[in-house]
């Protein structure tokens, strides 16, 4: 499969990344090379095999829905790039 310029821009957009001109060509080459290698999975003897999503048995883990307080609010907020009155500050979302 050939990766096109449009495709890489589409993927970058989905991933919320802005690529510089020189990055676009580089990532097309990289992605192409990695995908060529990854195509080997098509030769694996996997007919009829189920998929595996995790290393151990997949089962639901239930717990009581209890409120637990986390009291280090200052510790959380000190990492905020912008804050106001104990809230994370962001630009206006609705016009």
């Amino acid at each position, binding site marked *: 499969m050939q990766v096109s310029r449009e495709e890489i821009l589409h993927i970058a957009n989905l991933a919320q990344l802005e690529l510089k001109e020189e990055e676009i060509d580089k990532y097309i080459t990289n992605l192409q090379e990695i995908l060529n290698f990854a195509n080997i*999975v098509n030769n694996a003897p996997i007919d009829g095999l189920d998929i595996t999503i995790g290393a*151990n048995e997949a089962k639901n883990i239930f717990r009581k829905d209890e409120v637990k307080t986390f009291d280090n609010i200052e510790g959380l907020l000190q990492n905020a790039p*912008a804050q106001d009155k104990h809230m994370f500050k962001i630009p206006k979302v609705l016009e």
Partner: protein
Amino acid sequence: MDITELTVHELQEKIKNKELTIMQINEAYVNRIKEKEPEVQAFITELTEQGIEQAKQIQNRIDNGEKVGDLAGIPIGIKDIICTKGVKTTCASKMLEKFIAPYDATVMEKINAEEMIDLGKLNMDEFAMGGSTEYSYFKKTRNPWDLSRVPGGSSGGSAAAVSANMVPWALGTDTGGSIRQPAALCGVVGLKPTYGLVSRYGVVAFASSLDQVGVFTKDVQDCAILLNVIAGYDEKDTTSVDVGQKDYTKSLQKDIKGLKIGVPKEFYGEGINSEVKASLETAIAKYKEMGAEVEEFSLDIAKYALATYYIIACAEASSNLGRYDGIRYTYRAPEAKTLKEIYKKSRSEAFGAEVKRRIILGTYVLSSGYYDAYYKKAQQVRTLVMNEFNKAFEKYDVIVTPTSPTTAFKLGSKSNNPMEMYLADICTVSVNIAGLPGISVPCGVDSEGMPIGMQIIGNKFCEETIIKTAYAYEQETKFREKYKPTFKK
């Protein structure tokens, strides 16, 4: 006596016999860090001042006749992917350059409960993506055996710090070989436990179905001691498994008569350096001599596993790294005006090239049209890999392979060639795909004096077996008595 040469169990012995104090030990390590850090560059954040303060307090309590735990006052280094309350946890990324963790990871709570002293946060590839630690945003760590070479990765800071005696042991994480490969390249012991044995709570997520916390130590006995500390079920990590509390030091036995060792021939073929192969063959001959039953067999999954690994790991990473949005605790692009711009510019400016590459690959294989061709197939290959290992463990107790296809390579030699860097993981990734435990122990050096690692793979939750296999070999061959890092320039 050089205190920093000693293993932790040797330190414990000397503390008990009143030959050494907690203060002497910590001062020795802090001095060693001062001396070696300019060359090795293993630390992102040094905590030596706090460490000395902590040591003083513990020493005072001992001097006042208080009884403290067996590991109280023993220094440790922590990979900078593990959250440490009140201390920067950067994941070696510009994205988290200023992030101060508001809570401790579960493994840190366990380390702190033992009153061990964290002497610093150790360097790594950004978000643990890499095999050389060259993709750190902050610095390039050097291999203590030859400073012009890489320490391996992604936990290269942890491996180099233990190898250079800057800490007696360290924690790391392993998603595709990030503990075992740098341990091999730096001539130390590295263990990746079974998926689920150790809590991942508070460990920055890369590929959640593959990530596991493990240990770097100078010898196998220390490895068992530290595994005792960090293993255990945690309700905060729903993928952690309750297998009860075990004492892994009980596995430190030299008798391996009748142990069944499987040697998968595909792991000794194309791409494996001839000196690495020869060293492994010598180690396997040693096992035979010691009474193990060795058999060659076919485990033809390595190349499928590597492709599958990069598909699954990148897919999970592209999703996990979606949280870095510039809003709550990360870098925010200063010029961004709108919410959309905050997302895009912050991510584009603060992620390094390799991280972006993997996010792009991961997004691609999950995107409509390619999901079935890549991601679904990779998940089926994951089943195949597990089935093949299951079959092998019906016949063998352990599987022995090289840890890395080569010894440590020169800085800069692979960092611009992603595919070549990925191939360095060929021997280790299948263990993560199947969720198995693996340990790397030094088994020799090449003609340039660079260490070679042997990987011992066990069945799920059979850490005891791989520890015993590694210990018996180590006691017989005494690598640490024969070889030491030279800090060659």
